[in-house]
């Protein structure tokens, strides 16, 4: 239990203003459990992506705390920030692979927090990292694409590489920012399955922004509904009713 418990995140009074006086996140208080998959749903522009990016500090919050393993992530900078980031994997909507590098090189970039820049430049990664990368690529079904360049892959294949790269970090928590929004429905389910499997068997809690409520209900143990920069729902998928959805997204015609 302790192994998973300390992977939880407590967010306190988190506010982000891109323009002064116009908060995108408006004092978020949230406890994210240290196991299972937590979905964040809500309309576009409501700050879901900003919230996730505040956790690994791709975006700097204006104020508030993000507590993870006894550290306030919001206050970190320099080397402590890099060391915290190493423990947080991330999967992106647009995959964000380095297009001109091969599949293998992209997966190995997951180890850049541990390998020196000079060794990375010479492509001298430790053998155990290479073994693990091969194993991960086999697991996501890309064992035959090792030396193919990322710009030659389909969207689904790219996202598999993205997942392998994130798992390659051996993260203690996984963030996923709309991981399936650029994919077709069938591939979306496959990607969610791979992500859930990979994280599940390694006890990595996942926080995922997702537009597709049905997909969220199918894969997630917990759902957080946001609207206007605030959390308006926090509970299990079974507790999420149409009334909640109306509150989160506004209107009701689309529910029919």
């Amino acid at each position, binding site marked *: 239990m302790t192994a998973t418990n300390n992977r939880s995140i407590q967010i306190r009074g988190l506010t982000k203003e891109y323009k002064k006086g116009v908060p995108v996140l408006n004092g978020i208080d949230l406890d994210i459990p240290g196991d299972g998959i937590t979905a964040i749903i809500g309309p576009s522009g409501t700050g879901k992506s900003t919230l996730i990016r505040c956790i690994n500090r791709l975006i700097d919050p204006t104020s508030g705390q993000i507590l993870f393993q006894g550290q306030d992530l919001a206050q970190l900078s320099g080397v402590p920030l890099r060391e915290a980031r190493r423990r947080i994997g991330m999967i992106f909507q647009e995959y964000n692979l*380095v297009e001109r590098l091969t599949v293998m090189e992209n997966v190995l970039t997951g180890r850049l927090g541990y390998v020196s820049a000079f060794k990375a430049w010479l492509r001298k990664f430790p053998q155990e990292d290479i073994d693990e990368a091969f194993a991960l690529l086999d697991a996501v079904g890309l064992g035959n694409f090792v030396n193919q360049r990322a710009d030659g892959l389909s969207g689904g294949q790219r996202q598999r590489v993205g997942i392998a790269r994130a798992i390659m970090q051996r993260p203690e928590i996984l963030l996923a920012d709309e991981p399936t929004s650029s994919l077709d429905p069938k591939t979306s389910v496959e990607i969610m399955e791979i992500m859930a499997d990979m994280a599940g068997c390694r006890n990595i809690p996942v926080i995922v922004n997702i537009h597709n409520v049905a997909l969220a209900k199918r894969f997630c143990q917990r759902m957080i509904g946001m609207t206007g920069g605030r959390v308006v729902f926090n509970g299990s998928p079974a507790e999420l009713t149409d009334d909640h959805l109306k509150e989160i997204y506004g209107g009701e015609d689309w529910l029919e």
Partner: protein
Amino acid sequence: MNATMNRRWDRFTPEQRFLRFAFYFLSVAAMVFSLKNIEIIPEFLYDAPEQLADFFQRMWPMDTAYYQKSVQAALIETLNIATLGTLLSLAMSIPVGIVAARNVVPIKSLNMLAQLILVSSRSVNTLVWALLFIAIFGPGAMAGTMAIAFRSIGFVGKLLGEALEEAHRGPIDALTATGASKASVFIKGYWPQVMPSFVSIALFRWDINVRESAVLGLVGAGGIGMAMDTAMNLFRWDQVAVVLSTIFVVVIIAEIVVSAIRRRII
């Protein structure tokens, strides 16, 4: 009448239309003004074809023996100046170009310093750089090489900096999120994205430098221009013709080589 009919649509506001008109008007006015200002002497214009024919007559037949005697050695020196100068400028312009890119180095004062270096390198003509370095190193290929290198920093550095600023943000975010150091993010995130442009820029600059180093000899900075200068001072137009044809052929070969390499790499 239907309210949806005859709706007015204007691409530009009246102010925009006025500004556009003013722009065209000023352009034409500037051209007319310039034509009046340069004081073309009509007599010189009338007998230009005659002069041109005379010129070519003096160039032909070419003194082909001059190639073996002086041009070949000078040509090799020119290529050396161009190539060494380009390599030297690459080494110096990579750090300056990186510092000039505002997304890679988000420190305003450093960006401005790098821009200043790039602008000063570009604002001085290669021939002027050559005169400066002749004062330091004396006449010859050394001064020419340095002149080529210093003029190229601005070109290569500016284009490298711009390529870096156009790099996609996504992969950079992804690598930053792994906890990679700035150096690692640069090597694995930025560099693969700008590498093809960088090779292109370097080859293009080498191509330009072959042409520029051909002229450097006119101010005494070595290379094939020296041979041309000597021939011109002696009014040996048949020898000047040999030099000009050599430069022409070399420039075409350089162009072919550069485009072949560029096609391979991208």
